[in-house]
């Protein structure tokens, strides 16, 4: 089959659309996350989701998303909303919440073994690698991704200068009258919702990769915030599209293929950055 044949298959179209949109959102937010030292937040939050899932199983919730979503979003906001003046710095607080949630989850699972119906290890795998394979998306999930992406991109464009100001020097921004607390909270909520929903769609491993790789690749070559933001978005979209098409063609796992594409681009951009700086 040629490339065009694949593009006519509805499931490939859906996967491309959702994959590209999620990649775009993740990379836009990734620049500020990487610079705030929150690169590993996707990974940390997936452990929180796991902890919340075991609690849901223990108390016998049938629809565990009712607990998992709010708990994960609250944790993300707690981590991010304090901004650069947090008592515990980003990397340490993510590590704490991530390891803590994992331990609590495992402890609960051990004390109150799930009886029969709950399949926790399956759920863990789901949070890591994505609940629904991106090649079997339902129309509702596709529409949800489209809606969410429109909101995130609009937010990023409208708040671009504010995101720069609070990421570069939060104290200066606050001292000269910017509402940094409000902006930090808004940024945190948007990031939290994106990460949690994307975690459901493509899994936390892929979301972590989508957050860090495009931003870091762009930072090898571009030296301005605007250049890095635009370049990261382009890299992310191209790698996601290439990854999905290659995966559809060769039958490789989609997430891993996208990540490998991102790694290749990172290598390429490191090389360009190295040559440019000489």
């Amino acid at each position, binding site marked *: 089959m040629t490339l065009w044949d694949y593009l006519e298959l509805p499931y490939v179209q859906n996967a491309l659309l959702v994959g590209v949109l999620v990649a775009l959102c993740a990379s836009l937010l990734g620049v500020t996350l990487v*610079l705030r030292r929150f690169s590993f937040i996707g990974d940390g939050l997936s452990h929180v989701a796991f902890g919340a899932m075991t609690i849901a199983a223990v108390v016998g919730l049938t629809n565990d998303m009712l607990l998992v979503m709010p708990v994960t979003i609250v944790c993300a906001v707690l981590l991010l909303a304090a901004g650069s003046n947090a008592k515990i710095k980003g990397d340490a607080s993510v590590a704490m919440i991530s390891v803590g949630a994992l331990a609590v989850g495992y402890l609960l699972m051990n004390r109150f073994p799930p009886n029969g119906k709950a399949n926790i290890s399956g759920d863990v795998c789901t949070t890591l690698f994505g609940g629904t394979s991106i090649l079997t998306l339902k129309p509702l999930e596709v529409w949800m991704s489209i809606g969410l992406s429109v909101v995130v991109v609009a937010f990023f*464009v*409208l*708040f*671009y*200068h*504010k995101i*720069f*100001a609070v990421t*570069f*020097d939060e*104290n*200066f*921004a*606050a*001292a*000269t*009258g*910017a509402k940094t607390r409000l902006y930090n909270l808004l940024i945190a909520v948007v990031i939290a919702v994106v990460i949690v929903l994307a975690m459901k769609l493509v899994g936390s491993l892929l979301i972590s990769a989508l957050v860090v790789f495009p931003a870091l690749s*762009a*930072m090898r070559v*571009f*030296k*301005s*915030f*605007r*250049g*890095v933001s635009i370049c990261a978005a382009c890299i992310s979209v191209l790698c996601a599209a290439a990854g999905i098409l290659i995966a559809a063609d060769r039958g490789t796992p989609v997430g891993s293929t996208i990540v490998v594409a991102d790694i290749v681009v990172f290598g390429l951009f490191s090389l360009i950055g190295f040559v440019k700086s000489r």
Partner: protein
Amino acid sequence: MALLACNDLSLGYEGKPILEHIDFEVNTGDYLCIVGENGSGKSTLMKTILGLIHPLKGKVQTGDGLRQNEIGYLPQQTVVQRDFPASVYEIVLSGCQGRQGFRPFYSKADKNLAWENIRRMEIEKLAKRCYRELSGGQQQRVLLARALCATRKLLLLDEPVAGLDPKVTAEMYQLIADLNRKDGITVVMISHDLEAALRYATHILHIGARIFCGRVEDYLKSETGVRYLERGGMNP
């Protein structure tokens, strides 16, 4: 009324006072130097004036039509991460953010103001360059241009020459003195360098076990001043 006035101000972190009973005033056109030992609370005082820290007691009052978001600030050692991608122009323009409110984009006037301050600091050639690749003195000029975008009236500078070599230090002092004398911008500066403080400033605020606030001439005659000068190896 004074541009800035503090009455019986107490400040510190988490309810623990570092400085108490501070009274001082800054009037339009003044050049006030804040001096004192390391760790005496100079930076904390500046952050309190800026509203970054709440005072434990008392209030910082602004007058002469000065609003809280019209104060320019040059922080002590901005620890910008080594890998932060930001061009000089982007940073200077971000000085206008405080006035933006919820407007998403900068206006033409904001951009003109940024360029005006870039020219004033003589860093046009660096405008497209990456901030982290500049020398210490160039970086301070960028941050000063940013501070000037935030104010036309009052500049708060926290050790603006720390870590700069003597030549660049002298240039920096001259720039600040020009802003004060030619452009009429009121300056409040924290400095370790007593000699420069005495040369450029009109007023001194000495904080420590004893607090002095007044004109430079009076400081040189005061007991606090004489003792501090002697410790610094200078003859009043």
